[in-house]
C-alpha cells in the first residue's frame, strides 16, 4: 500500500519535472516546479521526515516560486524597455 | 474606540487560534499563549481597524451563529450542485458574468460576502467595483438585475447587515 503510493508519487514527480523542462512559457514552468516540490514534500513525509517536509514546503513552494516570478517580472520589464531605446 | 474594539477582537481571535493549536492544553501553555497574545495586540498593526467593524450586540451574536449554519447549508448545496453538473453526461452549464449590487458598506462585510458568494452554488466573485460585484455564474438565470441580486446576495446580506452592517 505504502510502497505503491510512493511509486506513484515518484512517477508523478518525474513527470512534473520533465514537464517543467519542456514547457514553452516560463511562468507555466515555474508552476510545474511548484508541483514538483509539493510531491517531494509528501514523499518526505511518507519517509517519516516531517521537519524536512516542512522546510521543503516552505522553501520549494513559496520562496522559490516568489523569487523565480520576481526575476521573471524583472526580465519582462527590461524587454519592454529595450525597443524604446 | 473603534481601534480598541479591533484590538479586543484580535485578542479573542488570537486566543482562539492558540486554543485550537494546543487543544489538549495545560495551564502553562495557556499562560504563555495569553502573554504572547497581549504583546501582539499592543503592536500597531496596519489594517487592524477592519476587525472593529463587528457589532457586539447579542442580536449580532445570534445572527452570527445562524449565518454559520446558513453558510454550511449553502456549501453543501453548492457541492451537490457541482457534483450533479460534473457527473451529468452533457454538462448542463451556460456560464456568464453578471453584475450584482450590494448595500453593505463596511470592508469586513464585503470581504465576507465575496467569500460566501464564491462558496455558494454556481457563483464566483470575479471583480469588485464600488457597490457592484461582478460574479461568474455557471448557469445564468433570471433576466432582471433585481432578480439576480435577490438570488445571489440577498440570503447572506440579511445576516451580514446585522453582524457588521
Amino acid at each position, binding site marked *: 500500500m505504502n510502497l505503491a503510493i510512493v511509486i506513484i508519487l515518484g512517477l508523478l514527480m518525474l513527470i512534473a519535472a520533465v514537464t517543467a523542462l519542456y514547457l514553452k512559457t516560463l511562468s507555466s514552468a515555474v508552476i510545474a516546479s511548484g508541483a514538483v516540490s509539493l510531491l517531494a514534500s509528501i514523499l518526505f513525509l511518507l519517509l517519516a521526515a516531517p521537519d524536512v517536509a516542512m522546510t521543503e514546503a516552505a522553501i520549494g513552494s*513559496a520562496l522559490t516560486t516568489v523569487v523565480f516570478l520576481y526575476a521573471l517580472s524583472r526580465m519582462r520589464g527590461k524587454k519592454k524597455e529595450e525597443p524604446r531605446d | 474606540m473603534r481601534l480598541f474594539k479591533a484590538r479586543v477582537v484580535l485578542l479573542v481571535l488570537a486566543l482562539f487560534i492558540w486554543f485550537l493549536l494546543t487543544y489538549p492544553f495545560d495551564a502553562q501553555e495557556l499562560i504563555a499563549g495569553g502573554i504572547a497574545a497581549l504583546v501582539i495586540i499592543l503592536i500597531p498593526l496596519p489594517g487592524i481597524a477592519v476587525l472593529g467593524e463587528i457589532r457586539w450586540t447579542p442580536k449580532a451574536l445570534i445572527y452570527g451563529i445562524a449565518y454559520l449554519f446558513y453558510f454550511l447549508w449553502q456549501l453543501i448545496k453548492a457541492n451537490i450542485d457541482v457534483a450533479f453538473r460534473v457527473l451529468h453526461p452533457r454538462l448542463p452549464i451556460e456560464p456568464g458574468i453578471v453584475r450584482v449590487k450590494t448595500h453593505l458598506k463596511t470592508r469586513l462585510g464585503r470581504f465576507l460576502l465575496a467569500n460566501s458568494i464564491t462558496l455558494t452554488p454556481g457563483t464566483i466573485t470575479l471583480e469588485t467595483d464600488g457597490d457592484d460585484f461582478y460574479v461568474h455564474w455557471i448557469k445564468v438565470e433570471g433576466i432582471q438585475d433585481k432578480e439576480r441580486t435577490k438570488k445571489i446576495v440577498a440570503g447572506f446580506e440579511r445576516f451580514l447587515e446585522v453582524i457588521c452592517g
Partner: protein
Amino acid sequence: MADLLFNIAAVIMMISLVLAMVRLLLGPTAADRAVALDAMTIIALSLIGWIAFMSGRVIYLDVALVYGLISFVGVVAIARYVERGV
C-alpha cells in the same frame, strides 16, 4: 475497520491527484495550471492528514498547516505575476 475505510479514501485521493496533474500538464494557459496546482495543494493537505493518521503522530498535521498557509502565498504570487508582474 477505520484503517480500511481510510485506505480506500487514500486510494481515491491518489486518483484525484493524478487527474489534477493531468490538467496541470494539459492546461492551455498559465492560469489553468495555477488552478490545477491549487487543487493539488488541497488534495495534498488531505493526503498529509491520511499519512498522519496512519503513522499516528499529530506532528504531521503541523506540516499540513504550514503547507496550507504557504501555498496560499505562492498561488497569490502566481496570480499577481500573471496579472501584471510581482
